[in-house]
């Protein structure tokens, strides 16, 4: 299983908010175990997707210089099950970005229906500029390209977000 729980960003405003989509597909192996004959997208993986969308929002806000870790799911509420064929639209809003962490609120929608709501607490580890062990920088950049961050991402003044330099 590949640990990519959003397919692409559709909107990304630095340090403020972002939207991303996740297409639920019957081709995903795990849906056949959850559950056999009744495939449902696990809510835990919806939280993971929202956390990926929000964690990158936080990481980008601090120049990808720190390690961003999902520290706590403060709240999670789901209203109905997501099934194969559904397109989940995640919206994440940065409530507060501090030096040591951030609070991100997120929602999941299927069409116009609110499917879930979460509140996430992230911690930022390591000091600025320190080589962090979680991702190779190139791996991170590749991931960000695949989910089209640099195609839709803008700064608050409307200018394009540019790819950070490889060091």
């Amino acid at each position, binding site marked *: 299983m590949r640990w990519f729980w959003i397919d692409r960003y559709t909107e990304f405003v630095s340090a403020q908010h972002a939207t991303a989509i996740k297409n639920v597909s019957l081709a995903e192996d795990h849906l056949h175990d959850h559950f056999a004959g009744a495939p449902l997208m696990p809510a835990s993986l919806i939280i993971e997707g929202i956390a990926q969308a929000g964690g990158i929002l936080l990481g980008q806000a601090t120049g990808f210089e720190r390690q961003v870790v999902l*520290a*706590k799911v*403060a*709240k999670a509420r789901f209203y109905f099950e997501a099934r194969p064929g559904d397109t989940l639209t995640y919206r994440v809003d940065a*409530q*507060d970005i*501090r*030096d*040591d*962490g951030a*609070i991100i609120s997120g929602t999941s929608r299927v069409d116009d229906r609110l499917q879930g709501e979460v509140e996430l*607490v992230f*911690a930022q580890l390591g000091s600025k500029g320190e080589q962090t062990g979680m991702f190779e920088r190139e791996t991170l950049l590749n991931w960000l390209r695949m989910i089209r961050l640099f195609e839709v991402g803008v700064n608050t003044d409307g200018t394009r977000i540019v790819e950070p330099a490889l060091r």
Partner: protein
Amino acid sequence: MASQEEIFSKVQTALVDALGVDEEEVTPTATLVGDLGAESIDFLDIVFRLEKAFDIKIPRGELFPEDILTNAQYVQGGKVTPAGLEQIKQRMPFADLTKFSANPNVQDFGNMLTVQDMVRYVESKLAKK
């Protein structure tokens, strides 16, 4: 200015939301770590909720002086030195340090803060606004 009951009620809501505890558990004498099960990451969440509820800014280290507790100058053999205790007193005038001072094990520090300390802290912040 908000009354003490109003402050307590908002602090209570913040702790219920951050720690997933019942309202009845959040009594003035309950300790955040021991009684309410707060872990270190919860303090970030609590700080965020208090800031929002009271429209105040809580600088890092003000509610939990981790920089003092990890400073070799103020900690010896796992205990906070008299100079360290003085630092904590100045930083956290809202906290009742009597019990902790008697046996100032760094490990026990987190278990000292009570809900009432939080209320006093918020009161002192609001008074300065």
